[in-house]
């Protein structure tokens, strides 16, 4: 899978990395059990700090997306991904709230708001459409 880091973005590099790997898994571009480059390799290929790459991997590991294997190195997890936990629900609502509020103020109907979300879900289910 191609990973593209935007150096002018406000999103921190580790967050860009984390999001792209999660999206890769969601869209099936990264298969379960597939190997990922080591921290050193990834940082070297992207020309970013070792700590930055490490931070992304540490979070992905903590959230259960990847697994660091003794021999095989970093691999995409085989088993079911972290389910919808209460913490995640709380996090989701907290992140979504300001967006929903702003959309509401701008006069957006809940149906229109849901259409945006539906669109994202559809793209994840049919990766070829994009």
């Amino acid at each position, binding site marked *: 899978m191609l990973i593209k880091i935007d150096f002018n973005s406000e999103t921190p590099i580790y967050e860009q990395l984390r999001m792209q790997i999660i999206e*890769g898994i969601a869209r099936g571009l990264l298969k379960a059990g597939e190997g990922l480059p080591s921290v050193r390799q990834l*940082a*070297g290929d992207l020309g970013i700090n070792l700590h930055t790459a490490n931070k992304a991997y540490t979070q992905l590991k903590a959230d259960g997306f990847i697994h660091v294997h003794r021999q095989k190195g970093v691999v995409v997890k085989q088993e079911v991904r972290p389910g919808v936990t209460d913490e995640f629900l709380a996090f989701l609502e907290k992140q979504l709230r300001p967006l929903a509020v702003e959309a509401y103020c701008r006069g957006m109907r809940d149906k229109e708001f849901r259409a945006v979300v539906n669109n994202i879900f559809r793209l994840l289910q049919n990766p070829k459409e994009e």
Partner: protein
Amino acid sequence: MVGVITIIIIMSTMAPLYLIFAFFPYLTRRTICMGVSIPEEMFADQRLKDIRKTYMISLLITGALVTGLAAASLLLLPEEYMGYALGAAIFVSLISIFLFYVRAYKKTRGLKQKEKWSTGRTEFSVTETGFRKGKITVSPLWFILYGLVIACTLIVFFSIYNSLPDTIVLNYNDLGNPGTAVPKTPFIILFPLSVQLVITLLMVFVYVVIGKARVQIDARNPEVSVARNRIFRYAWSAYTVFMGLGMVILFGVMLFLPLLTGNITIIIAVPLGYTIIAVAGALVLSLVLGQSGSRLKLKEKTVGKEINRDDGRYWKLGAFYYNPDDPALFVEKRFGIGWTSNFARPLTWVLMALFLLIIAGAVAASMIAFMH
């Protein structure tokens, strides 16, 4: 005989040096001009075209002059100074090439700064997580052949040792007379053996670098860039492995060649011929593929205005990479073909020291071979 060999030596060293350096501006990625990062569409800008052309023509003219002068002085000088003369000529060549390069580099950089090419552009760095899972180099098992050739050299040497003449000629000079001749001892084998081992180590090292070096992918056309990169690495790993194997065989054969044939022309022609083939091979590969496969004709879809991350400030004179914040050890050259080291990493210096030590060891082994 004298003239012919001198001309051949010059043609296989200095002439290709000038030629390849003259062509370098046309072999780089289109995101780099004379060691300066540029937006891809600027590559075709008339002023940059002129800078590249002026550089190439200056190099070709200087090259013709220096090469001609060197040939003349080599023909006129007494034979014992030929080695020094050739060394001096190559030194002068490198200095002149470097000066022309720096001039073109500064002109390009000046133009870029004056017109602010990179402001308002989004800089990207792209990688492919599965890059090294595909086939990017030839199999390392080919190196087994190196071991076999070295073993054969040893076996043949000791099995025919008794029938070898009392003095062994190691090389012939330009006039076809024996150059270095040494009395026969078993230590003689140290000479080809140490050279063979150094070549093997060197080729293994280059092979490892080709596999490990940073995967640099153009942000504008990532998929095509990945394909170019793969083909480039595979082709150069094949060249490295087989050219090196040929050299190992050559150094084994050269010891026995005088026994097989009395024909001095053959004895001189074999190593010279091999050098010419090896140099020509590298030239052809460079011209056909370009740096990182940039000259390969692959289907591209042109998109966006993305530019690659501009790390120009870490490239001293556009040619020497020094970036303490970059964990990469081997990176693609900006001007030229192949890879270079990140000089901010201590490991680079350790490797260079190690390399010098190995060369010193091989020289010492050869001295032992000749002194006994």
